[in-house]
């Protein structure tokens, strides 16, 4: 329900108001591309590769083409008639719109059938026959470092990122990026350390599983294209399509209504280039809507291996840390090289360590591509360094919380890159976990077959830099306000937050502010909705644009001979100036924080990030020693989100992120057999439901301020994921004395570890 734009003295920031779009969502009327149907629309059904790596010898589409109702079957040759070089990607131009010459993973798009009836398209797609000459394939990220199986014959960096330029033309390698950081002399410090600890941890490949599967619709006109897409990055889609087509940006319109979840799956180009070309080929609107199964073949989260070595002094201070991280990027780089670097530099954890060495590698393999998933690589790193940290504390017979506190990075101290920690409430988050876990109180450990344990973990993240957000805030002649911003509301509540920010500046109730959804013909440029950047970047842009509008309104008042104190009702200012209800003021602002790229040789930079995010967790678990089953009795999640704009939405973000991470921790895993995915459906790939919810959950945002953020705020979408996995593994060891070093923490893995600890290991199958 829209409220009247009556000026208010009530602060809008800090109000726990329901989302602006609540009515639309509870009545089933919210707009998603999923529901879009256009007159004359064709549906595309993708025919996919059945081999992990092979040369395409032949694609036979005759039987498919002969099916009644099939409009056309399209292969890479047709794509090239529109786009001669149809390779896309944010870091590398490595991904063809449809496979050319080679396929590089099972599930790669090879051909598309178009029909007015999606069932006809699907039936015909089954009749396509492709023959491949099998090539050797590589699946493991460590093997990919040295494998003779080479996924890409030649590396093709996009040119967007300076640190990838040296990769251009490189052959006989699967390494898409190597990032190195050297601070002090880790090797020497380790040699001289009192104690040295080394462990290796692994994480598994998982999938975002947005319940609105990826979907895009293209409409071509004579010289223009409109793309309706469930995308987190409409501006990027426009720029990349313009590059592929050789068109100016203003001939391409990309719009994104609400998204039914994103989590990083709906970034960069996914289906947009395909539907664009299909619509240009047919001159009809074309929709490609993936099934849940197909999402598993589109974008995933990196599996990783992380070897970590620490030197610790007699006083319990960590003096040196070496980190080697291998990121399994699958067949196409997507944003993996950014994950490798931007998250890679936080691999030593939130600790004050004098000597640090980091080697972080993005690898190509013959698996579905991996990209960003709620944390941009951070949850994989925290899993390793917080498991490792706990193991060290146990070995040293130190309290794990005290050991962390002793080594924690304080504000003003340099992080591994040399960038100073600022407004990063690591200490406060740890303190609150301690209190909420009742850490000092004796813990009931259970008896009999079910044993209880507790664990904690804390992680941090740098926000990706440098990125730009541009916003417009207009005031209408009746005093009502419209915010134009490209941030995509995929469930994080950005519409509401932006309305609260604009309302705060203009003294209007947030409920009265209209937020226009991302539409590149209307809303200004925004880098993307990712990495918890929007509230900080777009929030600042909206704040500045609203201030600009306020300034212009005051100028208008002066022109109209009114006092410029802002006390005249807005509508009166316009009426006085224009003689009737007419006119607008348009406030604009662009926001880009400063940034210094890391030195290529040392990985060091004095300005790695505009802000730091902090998240920590505490878990109490019950482990059934007879079955290995782990029950989460209590899960505490604490984050530094600066000053919340909307405390209710912030709490939901923190707990929602932690429950998602609980799935990645306890059971989610893409199971492969020689490159063939065995569980590409919700029947076989389980995501958390109500029964998986911990019996008790505690969620808290610490009292904090991000001084450079809009009204003290910063991003919150990912922080709830950081600590969950290691907190639970640490609790399991606390309960039953076994240490798991690979995710997920399934009952079978716990039981195997228990049996191995009793010198009665189970056989392999």
């Amino acid at each position: 329900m829209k409220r009247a734009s009556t000026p208010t003295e009530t602060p809008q920031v800090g109000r726990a108001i329901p989302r602006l779009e609540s009515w639309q969502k509870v009545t089933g009327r919210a707009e998603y591309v999923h529901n879009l149907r256009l007159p004359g629309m064709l549906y595309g059904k993708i025919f996919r590769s059945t081999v992990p790596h092979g040369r395409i010898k032949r694609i036979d589409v005759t039987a498919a083409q002969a099916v009644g109702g099939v409009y056309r079957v399209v292969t890479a040759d047709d794509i090239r008639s529109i786009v001669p070089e149809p390779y896309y990607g944010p870091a590398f131009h490595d991904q063809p719109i449809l496979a050319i010459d080679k396929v590089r993973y099972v599930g790669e798009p090879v051909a598309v059938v178009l029909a007015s009836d999606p069932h006809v398209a699907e039936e015909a797609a089954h009749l396509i026959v492709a023959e491949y000459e099998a090539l050797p394939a590589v699946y493991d990220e460590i093997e990919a470092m040295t494998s003779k199986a080479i996924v890409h014959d030649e590396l093709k960096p996009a040119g967007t990122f300076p640190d990838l330029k040296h990769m251009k033309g490189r052959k006989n390698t699967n390494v898409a990026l190597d990032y190195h950081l050297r601070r002090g002399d880790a090797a020497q410090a380790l040699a001289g350390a009192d104690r040295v600890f080394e462990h290796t941890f692994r994480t598994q490949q998982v999938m975002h599983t947005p319940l609105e599967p990826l979907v895009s619709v293209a409409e071509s006109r004579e010289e223009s294209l409109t793309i309706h897409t469930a995308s987190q990055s409409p501006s990027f889609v426009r720029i990349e399509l313009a590059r592929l087509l050789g068109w100016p940006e203003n001939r391409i319109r990309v719009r994104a209504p609400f998204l039914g979840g994103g989590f990083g799956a709906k970034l960069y180009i996914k289906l947009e280039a395909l539907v664009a070309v299909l619509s240009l080929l047919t001159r009809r609107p074309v929709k490609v809507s993936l099934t849940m199964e197909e999402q598993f073949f589109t974008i995933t989260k990196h599996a990783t291996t992380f070897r970590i070595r620490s030197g610790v002094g007699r006083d319990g201070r960590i003096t040196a840390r070496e980190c080697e991280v291998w990121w399994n990027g699958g067949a196409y780089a997507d944003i993996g090289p950014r994950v490798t670097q931007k998250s890679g530099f936080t691999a030593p954890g939130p600790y004050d360590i004098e000597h640090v060495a980091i080697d972080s590698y993005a690898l190509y393999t013959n698996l579905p591509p991996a990209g960003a998933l709620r944390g941009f690589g951070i949850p994989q790193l925290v899993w390793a360094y917080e498991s490792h940290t706990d193991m060290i504390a146990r070995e040293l017979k130190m309290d794990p919380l005290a050991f962390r506190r002793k080594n924690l990075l304080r504000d003003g101290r340099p992080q591994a890159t040399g960038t100073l920690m600022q407004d990063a409430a690591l200490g406060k988050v740890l303190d609150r976990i301690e209190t909420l876990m009742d850490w000092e109180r004796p813990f009931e450990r259970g008896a009999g077959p079910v044993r209880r344990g507790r664990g904690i973990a804390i992680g941090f993240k740098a926000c990706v830099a440098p990125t730009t957000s541009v916003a417009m805030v207009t005031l209408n002649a009746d005093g009502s306000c419209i915010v134009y911003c490209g941030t995509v509301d995929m469930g994080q509540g950005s519409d509401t937050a932006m309305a609260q920010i604009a309302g705060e500046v203009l003294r209007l109730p947030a409920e009265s502010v209209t937020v226009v959804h991302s539409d590149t013909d209307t809303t200004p440029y925004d880098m993307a909705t990712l990495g918890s950047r929007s509230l900080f970047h777009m929030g600042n842009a909206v704040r500045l644009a609203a201030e600009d509008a306020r300034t212009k309104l005051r100028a208008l008042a002066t022109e109209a001979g009114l006092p410029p104190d802002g006390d005249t009702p807005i509508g009166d200012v316009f009426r006085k100036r224009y003689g009737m209800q007419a006119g607008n003021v348009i406030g604009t602002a662009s926001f880009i924080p400063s940034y210094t790229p890391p030195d290529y040789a040392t990985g060091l930079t004095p300005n790695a990030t505009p802000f730091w995010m902090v998240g920590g967790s505490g878990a109490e678990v019950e482990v059934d020693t007879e079955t290995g089953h782990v029950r989460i009795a209590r899960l505490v999640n604490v984050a530094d989100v600066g000053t919340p704009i909307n405390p209710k939405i912030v709490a939901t973000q923190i707990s929602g992120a932690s429950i998602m991470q609980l799935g990645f921790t306890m059971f989610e895993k893409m199971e492969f057999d020689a490159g063939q995915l065995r569980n590409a459906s919700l029947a076989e790939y389980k995501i958390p439901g109500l029964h998986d919810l911990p019996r008790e959950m505690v969620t808290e945002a610490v009292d904090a301020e991000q001084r450079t953020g809009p009204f003290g705020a910063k991003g919150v979408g990912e922080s709830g994921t950081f600590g969950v996995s290691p907190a639970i593994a640490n609790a399991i060891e606390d309960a039953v004395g076994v240490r798991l070093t690979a995710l997920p923490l399934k009952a079978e893995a716990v039981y195997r570890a228990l049996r191995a600890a009793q010198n009665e290991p189970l056989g392999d199958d």
Partner: protein
Amino acid sequence: MAEARTIRFRLNGEAVSAHVGAHENLVEVLAGQFGLGGARESCGQGLCGCCTVLVDGRAVSGCLYLAAFADGAEVTTVEHAAPGEGLDAVQEAFVEAGAFQCGFCTPGFVLMTRQLLAEHPDPDEDEIRHYLSGNLCRCAAYPEIIEAVKLAAKKRRMQPRTKEER
């Protein structure tokens, strides 16, 4: 493709007919022929609950329910009764508790919660978890959903019964 037939049913209280293929499911027909987008096919296996609709008062997975079987039935979707009228107690409670993020799964949760409260007017937390365990929310607004169900139960107890029990 198998041949199509005409079915007649009541949709959100109104008598309607549709020409449906033997393979077409209820979600496709609701979206394609009646412009109703609240029931959404997501997993396509009846496991996520996004496609929930009521057929003769019982919740079914619309992605698995062949439209032809709706012949002669009373079909109710989340869109029922919203325009003009206010939100019902369940919808109000979901708004107030902030029991959704992206909103894609919300219609399914709303319909299942109505059915839960019709059977158990005052459910405890275990009953809520059990009854709604067939609905998935990837944003994981589960704590808020439990809160919303409790709140809706309270609202319903305090409200006089409406003319039409849903």
